[in-house]
């Protein structure tokens, strides 16, 4: 298991604990980490670490804007935003799993995925404004 998946799982566990999941356990194995209360654990695999999502986001930023300081700033900001959403998503899923019911499956399959994709689109929409902000000092 890679370091990013471990860190995402660790932060998600801390968030779930802070959100009030009682007896929230955290254990990692070769194939991923398990977070949550006994009998209601969720499995965080390598595909859940948000890295591929961040990479596609970065490909667009660098591919359309080229290697510039503004691109670098957007890449770093994008990684932070994607990972923030990812930790929030997994932490909330642990809470929903703990609460029980079918709402967990609705959130894991639809709500969080749509939100994270829309947030990436929103970051792309902001791209020209960020570029303008970085280009201003050069023009003066």
């Amino acid at each position, binding site marked *: 298991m890679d370091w990013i998946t471990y860190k995402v799982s660790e932060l998600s566990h801390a968030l779930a604990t802070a959100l009030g999941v009682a007896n929230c356990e955290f254990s990692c194995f070769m194939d991923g980490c398990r977070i949550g209360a006994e009998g209601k654990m969720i499995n965080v695999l390598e595909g859940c670490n948000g890295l*591929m999502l961040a990479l596609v986001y970065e490909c667009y930023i660098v591919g359309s804007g080229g290697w510039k300081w503004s691109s670098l700033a957007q890449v770093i900001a994008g990684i932070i935003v994607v990972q923030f959403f990812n930790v929030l998503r997994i932490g909330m899923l642990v809470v929903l799993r703990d609460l029980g019911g079918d709402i967990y499956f609705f959130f894991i399959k639809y709500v969080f*995925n749509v939100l994270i994709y829309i947030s990436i689109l929103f970051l792309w929409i902001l791209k020209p404004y960020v570029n303008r902000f970085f280009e201003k000092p050069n023009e003066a």
Partner: protein
Amino acid sequence: MKLRDFGIVIVYITLHFLSSGPMNYLLFINQTRDLFDIPVALAIGTTYKVIIAFAFLKIQKVELIYILPIIGLALITRILFHGPFPVGILAEWFYLYTRKE
């Protein structure tokens, strides 16, 4: 971005995820995590996702000469790098969209 286009993006993503729920259910009842263990469902699911992506790009008035490479690249992103298919489609569509604007 126009509100209409943003609405179409949300509809596209939602329609895309409508197939993910049944796929996950099929993985669960077959007690596997590998989609290649359920090849028929994988073929149907992929075809559905490609059709949805095609319809989305067509509605957004992207020319056919661009649609096929866009879907091809997004499939490569998905199959080879396990990346998110709709984000691949959106990235390429958004690049054309901003150029047009």
